[in-house]
């Protein structure tokens, strides 16, 4: 199980980083989402993998570490809010700049349209 989960995190991170390096806002946002998923999984497994054990101390012989689960909840909420924000910002940049390039310009357009 350890190997499977680490491969999964690695693949998701790699895909996320690749997509984040693209030049259009949509792939960048998808890349960010994948990357934050990978990070959330990573936090989750940092409490060690235990199957079938409740994350409550004192109810069973064996228990899963409850703290990473609390942390991952916070991290999920924050990354969700951030992704929503960047989505809205990307839409607004698309409206303001007329295209969805992350630098706000099509390739070949002059860079010095600002002073």
């Amino acid at each position, binding site marked *: 199980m350890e190997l499977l989960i680490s491969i999964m995190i690695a693949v998701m991170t790699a895909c996320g980083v690749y997509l*984040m390096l693209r030049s259009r*806002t949509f792939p*960048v946002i998808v890349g*960010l989402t994948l*990357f*934050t998923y990978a*990070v*959330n999984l*990573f*936090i989750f497994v*940092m*409490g*060690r993998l235990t199957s079938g054990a409740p994350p409550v101390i004192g109810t069973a012989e064996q228990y899963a570490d409850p*703290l*990473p689960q609390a*942390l991952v909840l*916070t*991290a999920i909420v*924050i*990354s969700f*809010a*951030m*992704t929503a*924000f*960047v989505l809205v*910002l*990307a839409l*607004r*940049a698309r409206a*303001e*700049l007329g295209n969805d390039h*992350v*630098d*706000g310009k099509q390739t070949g357009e002059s860079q010095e349209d*600002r*002073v």
Partner: protein
Amino acid sequence: MSHLIALPVLLPLITGVILLLLAGKGFVLTRTVSLVSAGLLVIISLLLFYTASSGVIQVYAMGDWAPPFGIVLVLDRLSAFMVLVTSVLAFFAIWYAASTMDHPAYNLNGLLHLLLLGVNGAFLTGDLFNLFVCFEVLLLASYALLVQGGGQERARAGLHYVVLNLAGSSLFLIAVATLYGITGTLNMADMAAKVANLPAQDAPIVAAAGLLFMVVFGLKAAMVPLYFWLPRAYSAASAPVAAMFAIMTKIGVYSIARVYTLIFGDHAGELANLIQPWLWPLALVTLALGVIGVLAARNLRMQVSYLVIISVGTLLAGLALNTAEALSATFYYLAHSTWVCGALYLIVDLIRRQRQDGSDAIRTGPSLPQSTTLGLMFFVAALSVAGMPPLSGFVGKLLLLQSATTGYAAIWLWSLVLLGGLASITALSRSGSTFFWRTTEVVANTQKASLLPLAAALGLLATTPALALWGEPIIAYTDAMAEQLLNPGQYIDSVLRHTTVGGNP
């Protein structure tokens, strides 16, 4: 147990919520609430500063959960100092925002207070995960503040800023999770104690997490090679927001100082002084690139943004020296550069408003209606930021140079810091003479600035002679602060031996 420590976090939170509820209820009301709250924050942080100057480290356990399990706020000399620097800057920035009536930004004040919530939380927290949460709170507020008012430039700069910081936050989480996985704790004091007694096979993983922290804090501090977002973002933001952002790079510097003296300091055994070999060259390259940027900038706000980068390079070099004298000088310089860069953003905005075309491009134009007043203010700020005597920039740089007098460190630091001063004064005298002397005969047909925004900029500017005048007590304080930072034993003891009021186990 005094509840005063929690107030720099709670007051902006409550004010922020009230202001969001009051949005659109009339300018006078919201601006008064905002300004009064900022004033209260200054008083609270002065009280905390006074408490911390005795050298006692106060620990505040949130919800009365004993450390290392609960969340703690810790007030030592460094955090009290940073909170004071922030609240003074915020007071004048909010004053300026309140007195320039021409923008219809309903949520500006509320967001400024939420930004303060994150900043003060980051300075006071004694818990790594909470540091992350506070970073996110201040970043989310700063994203919204940056794009406030709209426009192409802000949308473009905002997108880069947000995406980069989101990637940075993910790296932060990876580092925190790795450290938790190895040490089993998130409390910084507890972690410091655990890292000091780390089994040898775990050391490389903790080192990797520690270096990842440096990437994250380097991104916040705008360290090479992670500074490219800063000039465009800061020069696109509106003036009070840009002035508030002057503290944001310093949060990165603060976090580097905190984490690498407490967790990876001299006492960390195998991982002692983890980043020192990296920090020194990066600091100097940051300084050098800031110098090039200042000389190359074609408008005034861009120039000030590169001055921020020069100050970051100088501060990181001070941290890299890692001696008590250098740390003390670094934090004196930090207060100076935060306030004076904030003041410069406000002054530049006043200049821009009085120009005929409303732009701050460095080129000849009609003379300003208030060219004497603004010229004098610009002159004082330029002297101070470039490090000319008798103002605080000179004192800060002198102290820093004095702390490195021999060897390689001295050669590199002296040449680059002095070169930075020379470049700043060259660039600022070029822009200053273009704006105030090399003008056409006509006086621009624009409104004069009223007294209130002028007073806000002047008030922030007045901190630089004040820092020089009261230099002695302030330097005595920063000396004691450096001493406290380099001997984290007291910090670790105070947090881990903290007993809760209810006495739960």
